[in-house]
């Protein structure tokens, strides 16, 4: 039995009476649950605990790699392209370890009938789970090919080399193509744990900045998305609901819609209602007519509208289960200076630019669903339970959608489409949600709050650190029919399952609440709030966004009070060399030591986190300029440094970090879902404004640390927390005003600055 990160756990001296004990006691199962960052269901069972990545649950080589006699190579992954570039990165991993050209590889992403089940594509886990599995599977395959060729040639296996183009070579110059050798082998064998990996000095593909394979079609109108699929006989559907979760339409005018030319069917089952038409525009007009009906609220009240105190009041009124996260006791000097502060984040929308879409087809008792969900195999489980079909009669296939950044409407729309398709056998059904449905019905990123109290001793070392975090569960990923809207609307309904926390070390609301820094006397508690006043689920980085914001803001508050440089207080409390390296790299590239000092208008801030204390290290420094008349903050320049282990494609890493940084500026600087008494009041881009071109930084630069051959750590969520805190710290440096409630909006800053 092994645990994923035993050294970091024991070294950090985590509390042994809390959630961690559970994850130790159930290690094989709990470890399987960590696929996809611990989100979603139990995931596939671990059958080979000694293997790496997702080979633990799918150890058979031919589940990952097939080589045809003509040398064509197919690689299978249970992860999916979300715009994060994983298709390209995994292709590079496979090409490197097989030692073939990337162009020779066809990569198949999650498909319940073709690929391994790797749980969700979430939690920055794809490189660790699938990258590591493919890397080791490919090394196994290369080893078997070399051994077979060696046998054929009568030479020692270690004398056989590969040529980088799918060929094997003997010392005497004889060679064989992979296809010919593979035809004599069965790859239906289990991987061995110690197949030698290629040396970083020999790399031909890994670490190259290859252009992403999916981008050309996206630039030219090629078929790139699920939305672009057109099946013969396909009909267009719209699902009909009230304005947001927890409402229902009263007496929609079905008769009038049934008479509309081009309307093919109205599907009504229990509380589920949809309209199906030959043309998309007809379906939309029918929907608009039905939406004229009055609506009523059917669920408990929504949170009070507002941010800061309003968020805190809502969360503090909910019953909490206290989960100890970290508890250390150390000898330390007396506190000389202490700071206590509360930080909040409102509910945030995923805000996908493309509303969720799915296509479903039901023929001869078998359902096929094309979905852009992050959990293709969960879509199968959900649809099977919802429609009473055996799971083997549900085929779920991933097709790309717009960026989701967590659980948006993708799972719901897939279930919706399946319900409609089941009612209309033989007709492929394309269903896309409308803009207001995506805003109104998707699960939001949970509102959160923290309270921190920390103290510095006489030697400027932190002598005590308390961190309490209040949060709803962030993992309400559907694993059964109760997790999707159509399930809740069925007759009888499938009830929504009770929310559960993700145990540490990954955590959900608790994610990154345990500081990586060495602080004396650290006490961290997670006030887990099971009851959800709003439908919520995973949003990129989960609780790390507010927890890192809180920790890194508090460090600057302490530093400012004691006159310590923000970089120095961090380095003084950090033993992890890689953490120190990214902080120093960001500071060096930024010119931290020569930065302009805060002058009332301009200022600089920095922040750091290692995502989940297990994933990528990321430090961010930025310079802001504040317009004191309006409170508007412009980021003049930002620099990030990231260590994600061996980067598969450094430009792909930069793209993710740049994007995460800009997205976090939008979340942190201006976003909050608004609530009316009976519905969500954010329903379009004017009632939920996000960052536009005028407000993005003057420049963003990303330093990717060179870590040859180091294990993959994942990248996608690493920038969210540090970017948020760096913004608050830069504003504080510029103005002397510390903003602790998101969004750090112009209105909030102007109010805090007072009259000019």
């Amino acid at each position: 039995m092994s645990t994923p990160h035993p050294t970091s756990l024991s070294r950090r001296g985590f509390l042994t009476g809390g959630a961690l004990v559970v994850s130790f006691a159930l290690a094989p199962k709990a470890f399987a649950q960590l696929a996809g960052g611990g989100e979603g269901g139990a995931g596939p069972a671990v059958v080979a605990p000694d293997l790496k990545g997702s080979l633990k649950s799918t150890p058979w080589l031919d589940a990952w790699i097939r080589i045809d006699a003509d040398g064509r190579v197919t690689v299978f992954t249970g992860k999916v392209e979300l715009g994060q570039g994983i298709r390209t990165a995994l292709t590079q991993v496979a090409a490197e370890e097989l030692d073939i050209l990337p162009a020779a590889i066809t990569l198949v992403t999650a498909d319940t009938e073709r690929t391994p089940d790797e749980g969700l594509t979430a939690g920055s886990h794809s490189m660790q789970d699938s990258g590591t599995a493919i890397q080791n599977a490919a090394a196994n395959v290369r080893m078997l090919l070399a051994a077979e060729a060696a046998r054929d040639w009568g030479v020692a296996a270690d004398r056989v080399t590969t040529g980088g183009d799918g060929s094997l070579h003997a010392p005497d110059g004889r060679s064989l193509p992979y296809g010919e050798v593979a035809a004599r082998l069965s790859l239906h064998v289990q991987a061995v744990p110690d197949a030698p990996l290629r040396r970083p000095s020999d790399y031909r593909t890994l670490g190259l900045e290859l252009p992403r394979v999916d981008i050309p079609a996206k630039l030219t109108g090629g078929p790139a998305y699920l939305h672009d699929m057109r099946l013969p006989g396909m009909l267009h559907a719209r699902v009909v609901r009230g304005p947001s979760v927890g409402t229902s339409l009263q007496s929609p005018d079905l008769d009038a819609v049934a008479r509309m030319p081009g309307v093919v069917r109205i599907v009504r089952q229990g509380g589920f209602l949809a309209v199906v038409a030959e043309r998309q525009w007809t379906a939309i007009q029918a929907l608009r007519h039905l939406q004229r009906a009055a609506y009523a609220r059917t669920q408990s009240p929504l949170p009070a509208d507002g941010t800061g105190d309003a968020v805190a009041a809502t969360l503090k009124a909910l019953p909490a289960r206290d989960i100890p996260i970290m508890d250390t006791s150390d000898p330390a000097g007396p506190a000389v200076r202490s700071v206590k502060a509360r930080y909040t984040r409102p509910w945030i929308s995923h805000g996908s630019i493309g509303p969720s879409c799915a296509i479903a087809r039901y023929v001869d008792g078998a359902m096929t669903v094309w979905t852009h969900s992050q959990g293709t195999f969960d879509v199968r489980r959900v649809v099977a339970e919802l429609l009473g079909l055996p799971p083997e009669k549900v085929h779920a296939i991933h097709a790309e959608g717009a960026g989701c950044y967590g659980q948006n409407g993708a799972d719901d729309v897939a279930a919706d489409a399946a319900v409609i398709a089941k009612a209309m056998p033989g007709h492929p059904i394309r269903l896309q949600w409308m803009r207001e449905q995506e805003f109104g019905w998707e699960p939001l990123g949970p509102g959160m709050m923290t309270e921190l109290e920390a103290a510095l001793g006489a030697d400027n070392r932190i002598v005590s650190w308390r961190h309490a975090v209040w949060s709803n569960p962030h993992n309400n990923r559907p694993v059964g029919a109760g997790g999707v809207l159509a399930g809740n609307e069925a007759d009888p309904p499938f009830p929504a399952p009770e929310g559960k926390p993700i145990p540490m070390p990954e955590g959900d609301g608790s994610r990154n609440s345990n500081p990586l820094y060495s602080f004396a006397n650290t006490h961290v508690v997670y006030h887990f709030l099971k009851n959800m006043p709003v439908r919520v689920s995973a949003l990129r980085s989960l609780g790390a966004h507010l927890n890192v914001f809180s920790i890194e803001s508090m460090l600057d508050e302490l530093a400012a009070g004691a006159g310590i440089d923000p970089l120095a207080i961090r380095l003084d409390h950090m033993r992890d060399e890689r953490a120190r390296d990214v902080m120093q790299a960001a500071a060096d590239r930024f010119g931290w030591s020569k930065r302009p000092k805060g002058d009332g208008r301009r200022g600089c801030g920095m922040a750091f986190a290692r995502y989940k204390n297990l994933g990528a290290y990321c430090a961010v420094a930025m310079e802001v300029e504040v317009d004191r008349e309006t409170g508007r903050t412009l980021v003049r320049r930002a620099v990030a440094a990231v260590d994600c282990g061996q980067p598969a494609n450094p430009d792909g890493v930069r793209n993710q970090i740049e994007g995460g940084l800009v997205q976090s500026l939008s979340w942190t600087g201006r976003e909050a879902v608004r609530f009316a008494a009976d519905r969500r009041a954010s329903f379009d881009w004017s009632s939920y404004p996000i960052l536009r071109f005028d407000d993005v930084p003057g420049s963003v630069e990303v330093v990717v640390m060179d870590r040859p051959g180091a294990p993959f750590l994942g990248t996608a969520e690493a920038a969210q927390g540090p970017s948020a805190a760096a913004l608050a710290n830069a504003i504080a440096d510029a103005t002397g005003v510390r903003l602790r409630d998101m969004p750090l909006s112009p209105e909030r800053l102007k109010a805090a600055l007072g009259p000019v």
Partner: protein
Amino acid sequence: MTVTITVNGADHSLDIDPATPLLYVLRDDLELNGAKYGCGLGQCGACTVHIDGKPAFSCLTPIGAVAGRRIRTVEGLGSAEAPGLLQQAFEKEQAAQCGYCIAGMLMRAQALLDRNPDPDEVQIRAHMQTNLCRCGTHMRILRAIRRAVAMRKGVHSAQEVRP
């Protein structure tokens, strides 16, 4: 009724409700994938096309209003095999993450370059303000537009366009 429209230089006659937004005609009748449904409200720009050379929200434009007018979509800028200059610049800068907004971004930017072949940074940002990206690809999109400007001027040095 029958409506004839000209898309990327080709005429198409359709028997269609003239109130149908151009977006659905492009996507469902002409099977062009470039223009995307994002909001249906003219707020995000994912559906941007050119009508008589000017950028327009195809989600808000009734097909009956564009009969006889020149419509250009991202497919009209080039193909994966023979990409246009702006598409090449986006490819060089890898200016996409999920990419759902990108066809609209290209058409918005192309309209600027058609009118002003040498825009400065302030002009580019102001012009692109209309279009939303959620992945945070803005910095690369801006770089790609600057690169296209430089390419058009015959400056191919990456240093000229990379900050």
